[in-house]
């Protein structure tokens, strides 16, 4: 599926924003993922075209970063931390509980397509509120089985989160070519 016209325009704007258009690769991959939920081969080729760079370069970058998804997932994304600071406060038990409640293994998607979940060893930066998980890229801290139940309930009945796109407070002025 081709990228929407607005996304393509956004990518071209990004290219003009940086001293080097190559710097627009990661923001362009974000833009594609925000629109389509994950990054397709077609999107990477399109990004390459808009930025005037070889597709292999876009793929090399996309495959390095863990937040770029290469296949479709459930409507909501749940990531639970199992690094040491979370482990110390019971992350393993929360992982076991989450797995039981969702009925799918680590990395899987629930049968109704609502939730894809996985555990992560990459610290997410909420150790003061451990155990924690990230729900559609927003932190849920001080987890308990009851809190997990409430979060699951909410996610099952809400629409998709559009790949964690930042909310913009006001329309941005179109970027001008940098001076440097």
């Amino acid at each position, binding site marked *: 599926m081709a990228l929407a016209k607005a996304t393509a325009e956004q990518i071209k704007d990004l290219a003009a924003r940086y001293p080097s258009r*190559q710097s627009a690769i990661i923001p362009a991959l974000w833009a594609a993922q925000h629109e389509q939920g994950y990054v397709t081969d077609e999107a990477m080729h399109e990004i390459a075209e808009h930025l005037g760079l070889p597709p292999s370069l876009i793929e*090399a970058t996309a495959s390095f970063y863990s937040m770029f998804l290469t296949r479709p997932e459930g409507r909501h994304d749940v990531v639970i931390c199992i*690094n*040491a600071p979370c482990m*110390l406060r019971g992350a393993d038990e929360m992982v076991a509980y989450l797995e039981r409640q969702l009925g799918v293994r680590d990395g899987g998607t629930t049968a109704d397509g609502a939730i894809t979940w996985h555990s992560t060893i990459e610290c997410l930066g*909420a*150790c003061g509120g451990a155990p924690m998980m990230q729900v559609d890229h927003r932190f849920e801290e001080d987890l308990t089985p009851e809190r997990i139940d409430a979060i699951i309930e909410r996610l099952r009945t809400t629409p998709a989160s559009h790949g964690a796109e930042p909310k913009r407070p006001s329309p941005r002025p179109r970027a001008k070519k940098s001076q440097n």
Partner: protein
Amino acid sequence: MAIKPLLTKDFATENLHQLSVYEKTGGYAGFKRALEMQPDELVELVKKSGLRGRGGAGFPTGNKWGFLPKGMYPRYLVCNADESEPGCFKDRYLIEKSPHQVLEGILIASYAIGCNLAFIYIRGEYLPQTEALETAIDEARQAGYLGKNVLGKGYDIDVILHRGAGAYICGEETALLTSLEGYRGEPRLKPPFPAVKGLYGKPTVVNNVETVCNLPHIVLNGADWFAAIGTPTGRGTRVWCMSGHVNRPGNYELENGTPIRELIEEHGGGVWKNRKLKAFQPGGASMMVLLPEHLDVALDFDAIQKAGSLAGAGAMVVMDETTCMVDAARRYVKFFHHESCGKCTPCREGTFWMANLFDQFEAGDAKPGDIDLLLDIGYNIDGRSFCPLGDASTWFPRSVIKFFREEFQEHISEKGCPFKKSVQEAVA
């Protein structure tokens, strides 16, 4: 010791993240004052203040600025907001509560080094914080703090907020610059240092979020005022992220030189569940373990180093008597294995083999020679890779073997983890 919060003193103020509120607390006065000064005067001021980088290495900030080669332009300032050290969540807090303080620090640093385009590299996982900074940048632009001819002083500055996409390695400054250029986030060999050849091959300064947050206060109050806070080699305060087995985990800004005991027992409310302290880490996942006998060591770069660890990015991970030190080390090793960028063989392969061995210890499959094998692998990683990720992957496990070797032996003799049961009870 009296507590003098600098960066967090107004954090109880409601809506501090809004420009108008930030200005009411004295915000942007530091930047206005800086614009009245010559850039070189600012560099000297920061050198004199003794401010050291808060990202982990503790390098003197003013000296870092001073390394930029004369007459070479453009120059770039990059604010490192890729906070990813396990145990660390201070930059997130500083950004969330007061994004304008971060921005003001960036503007001061940019002016001091003669940069007209600055970047903030924020980790992809920090979505609400990305939004907070984006809003702050928009507000500051509308108020004339950034853009062309800022506040009528003839200085042009723009700031680009660049969002990463999930890679711990990008917190390392050369990997960060490579990532900002659009590539896979692999580190570069130093020298040349970024000050000489950084972003796009141009002179570049990379400063941590907490470091730049100090700048408005130093400009407003002077180098002598700042130098009077903290210890002779650790001026000012630090925001300590405390996690693990304490009653009150969270961020605490304390004057450098405060005893570790005060952080854990007074601010953190002591070890939870009336248990005994077993060990703690003063600098996040990378840093060596310390013991209860080190509680009176000062929170200070040099004092912690003398005690056998490093202050790193200021993350205090506290472990009580029920903690399986083997499992704690296993998590960190698996983390480093996951986050190794793969460029250097000793780190890429070494972290893989260490992670395998740690899994065997937990599963009860380890053999008597495996403790020394771990040490041997660690020895062959440390100092043999481009960047400190590989080195740091070995520091905690090796220090744990040094102080808790018997726990590894128990995992072998009991064919599994002797702590599993007690840990499960602890969190039930």
